């Protein structure tokens, strides 16, 4: 009898014990040896203290493992001491361990850092680094030995003012990678707009930092790569200089109209976004309004930050996901060949994003079911907000959003399904996605404005097959930036593009990840930036496949 009672009690205990949440991500930053901390002023009294920083996942030492670079920023109080901010380069040692190689690399002190993008700018087969900053962005040349040299001046790509987003692409098909840089607000550190001074420095009746509305914006830059170590400013000639000074942030080079020429999307904060369509003659036509990607579905200018590009519906076309300010919604613009359609509410991604200020974003197939999901990090710009919790906005620290793709054009937001790893609140900015250990599961590095960064290691148990596709382009575009990869399985085709500059002023790993579901193999087709095509049939699943361009 006693035994029976004990058995029943034990069964009852099992019954009432809450099911453990499914494991998806585990933050391994600390155990991996990442000790970086982004510097930030506690009160964020000035807008320059709220917008940094980016993060890059790229293989700086060509050992096949993606390394990490976190961008740090100064504050108004430390503005005159560049050593007060220390950006950090971490070498991936394998086995989920990283080593701080910043001091040797020479990438530690780019100044008041904002964002980062990487590319092999001189065709030597090694990735170089461009860091945007307040007071002068920098181009660092990779010396092939773990060190970098600042070649900003000789390359002619130093930009005054406040640069934010950047990205390389070969816009004129001369084989060399050109550079676009967005700039944000015109700011004079000696005459900063006074905290809470007027109506553009108030939020819900409380004093906050001023801007961006009410402050003058900055123009943008396009530099043509001349091929001799020097770039030439062609911004005005190309028609992408933004003379009105919209508040530029995230940048995405891709080819939405499929004409084989890279076009350019620029997320502008509180002003209409830009879509520059490549005219194939060295100039661009700004077309965001007629293409339906300038503003929200109902015509509101949103506070756009991050831009992600992905083929979320197996259409073979690259759609856009743009993160925005609170009480606005994140935009999912579906690519309809000659225009985009705002599918945000219909796709069920918009409503849940309304309370959050969104930053880094990416299409990631976290469970390898073949359907790209969407990951977004959030965090407000006003710490003062926590004193006045009014309206629909969340507080200063905010949770992440993970939209699971249902495969029918709609998404479920599933962050809470995976414990607190995604619902814990942070003040995040840039993210970089990629597979740090080649286990076929996409990992995510996150740079927080306040606090420690995270390295979310994907440990999902139930997952499909996968492929990681690494491209080796012909020199000088050795990274094959702009190449489109199409992977075909019985469940359909997936298309992805190799980009320099992703999400919010950050850099994803350039190797492209594809979930294959149950498919044991896939056909892989690469459309190289010069229009040539390479096809490999029946590529076995669950491997890193490297495809070399043959000329």
């Amino acid at each position, binding site marked *: 009898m006693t035994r029976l009672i004990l058995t029943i009690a034990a069964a009852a205990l099992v019954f009432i014990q809450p099911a453990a949440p499914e494991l998806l991500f585990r933050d391994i930053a600390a155990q991996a040896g990442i000790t970086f901390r982004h510097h930030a002023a506690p009160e964020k009294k000035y807008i320059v203290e709220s917008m940094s920083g980016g993060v890059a996942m790229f293989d700086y030492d060509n050992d096949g493992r993606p390394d990490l670079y976190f961008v740090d920023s100064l504050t108004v109080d430390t503005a005159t001491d560049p050593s007060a901010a220390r950006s950090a380069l971490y070498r991936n040692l394998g086995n989920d361990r990283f080593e701080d190689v910043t001091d040797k690399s020479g990438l530690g002190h780019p100044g008041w850092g904002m964002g980062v993008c990487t590319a092999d700018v001189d065709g030597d087969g090694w990735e170089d680094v461009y860091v945007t900053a307040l007071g002068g962005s920098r181009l660092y040349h990779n010396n092939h030995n773990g060190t970098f040299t600042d070649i900003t001046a000789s390359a002619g790509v130093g930009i005054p003012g406040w640069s934010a987003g950047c990205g390389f692409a070969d816009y004129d098909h001369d084989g060399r990678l050109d550079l676009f840089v967005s700039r944000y607000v015109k700011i004079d550190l000696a005459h900063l707009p006074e905290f809470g001074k007027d109506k553009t420095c*108030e939020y*819900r*009746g409380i004093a906050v930092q001023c801007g961006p509305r009410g402050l003058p914006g900055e123009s943008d830059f396009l530099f043509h790569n001349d091929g001799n170590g020097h770039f030439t400013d062609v911004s005005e000639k190309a028609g992408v200089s933004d003379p009105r000074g919209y508040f530029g942030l995230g940048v995405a080079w891709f080819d939405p109209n499929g004409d084989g020429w890279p076009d350019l999307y620029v997320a502008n904060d509180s002003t209409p976004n830009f879509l520059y369509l490549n005219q194939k003659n060295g100039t661009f036509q700004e077309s965001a*309004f007629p*293409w339906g990607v300038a503003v929200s579905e109902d015509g509101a200018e949103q506070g756009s930050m991050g831009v992600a590009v992905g083929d979320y519906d197996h259409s073979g076309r690259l759609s856009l996901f743009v993160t925005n300010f609170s009480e606005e919604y994140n935009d999912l613009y579906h690519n309809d060949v000659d*225009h985009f359609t705002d599918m945000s*509410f219909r796709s069920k991604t918009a409503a849940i994003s*309304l309370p959050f200020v969104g930053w880094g974003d990416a299409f990631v197939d976290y469970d390898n079911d073949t359907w790209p999901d969407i990951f977004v990090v959030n965090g407000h710009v006003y710490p003062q907000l926590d004193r006045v919790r009014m*309206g*629909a906005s969340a507080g200063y620290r905010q949770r992440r959003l993970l939209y699971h793709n249902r495969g029918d054009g709609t998404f479920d937001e599933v962050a809470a399904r995976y414990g607190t790893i995604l619902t814990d609140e942070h003040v995040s900015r840039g993210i970089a996605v990629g597979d740090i250990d080649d286990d076929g599961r996409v990992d995510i590095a996150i740079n927080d404005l306040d606090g420690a960064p995270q390295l979310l290691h994907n440990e999902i148990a139930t997952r499909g097959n996968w492929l990681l596709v690494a491209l080796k382009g012909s020199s000088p575009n050795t990274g094959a930036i702009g190449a489109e990869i199409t992977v075909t399985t019985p469940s359909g085709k997936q298309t992805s593009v190799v980009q320099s500059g992703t999400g919010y002023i950050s850099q994803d790993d350039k190797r492209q990840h594809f979930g294959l579901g149950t498919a044991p193999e896939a056909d892989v087709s690469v459309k190289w930036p010069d229009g040539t095509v390479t096809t490999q049939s029946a590529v076995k699943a669950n491997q890193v496949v490297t495809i070399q361009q043959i000329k």
Partner: protein
Amino acid sequence: MIGAILLTLALQAQAPSAPPARAAVPDRAALLARAGEAVQQGNRAEAKRLLEIAGRDRQSVRALLQLAHLQLEDRETAAAMQTLVKARQLAPNSEDVLSAIAELSLAGRAAVPAILTLESMTRLYPDEARYSYLLGVALMGAGDLPAAIDALRKANTLQPGQRLTLLALGLAYNNQKLFTDAYPTLRKALDLDPDSVETIAALSEAEAGTGDLNAAERDAARAIARAPQNATANLVLGMVRLAQQRYPEARDVLLIAAQADPASPKPEYQLSLVYARLGDQASSDRHRQQYQEKLRAMEASLAALHPATRTPGK
């Protein structure tokens, strides 16, 4: 379009209850009696003269309220407001006076005095649903939708099941793109008043926002059948037609929406998209220009309301 709806909501709001009888000196009483007789005889000018004397020389708040009422009926809005200001000087905390000022301000689309007055009233009479409702409507007019939603939710809690409160709350939710909250709210409002065109139109907007384009199309068409010039319904139907790639039909209903609500940038933006799809770049550019001009004008008018509202700076 929301401005017109707000005006309707304000005017439809329950009129202030008759001022309570006060102990009056004979002179006041006589003046009020004579004014009442003059109104009955159709001599409104004489009635106003007598009420003005009673207010000025006998400090009769009741006379001033009656005078404001007559002036409002005669569309002398500015004079009515002046009369009520005098009444407020005599009785600063009078519920009747404050209420009349707030409602008159709302009817005249003077959001700032309405908000200031109603914020006082909701503090003085925290259990009175009507004042929270009116405050919500005033805040909507000022573009402070989060605060409007707070006030309207309170009104709905204090006195549930009020059609106008539910409609205003639904409109505020729609404007904040909180469509999943708007939908059940507007359904309840429609249950209470199945023939309300504004409610049907607002419901169609919520349905479009939740992604149910079939329902949005059906309800927008219902609203248009009752009121062919309804701005919201035509805008929603236009957006549905745009999504269906039925561009000529989208253009036609959006032109009606733009005409019905000439201050709104929304139909202009949709028209810029439709003309772009139709390949008419010149018309697309023209409507984009109009959209941007109207957007700037709307922002300027909202900015002018500062600091009474808590419009965000970002």
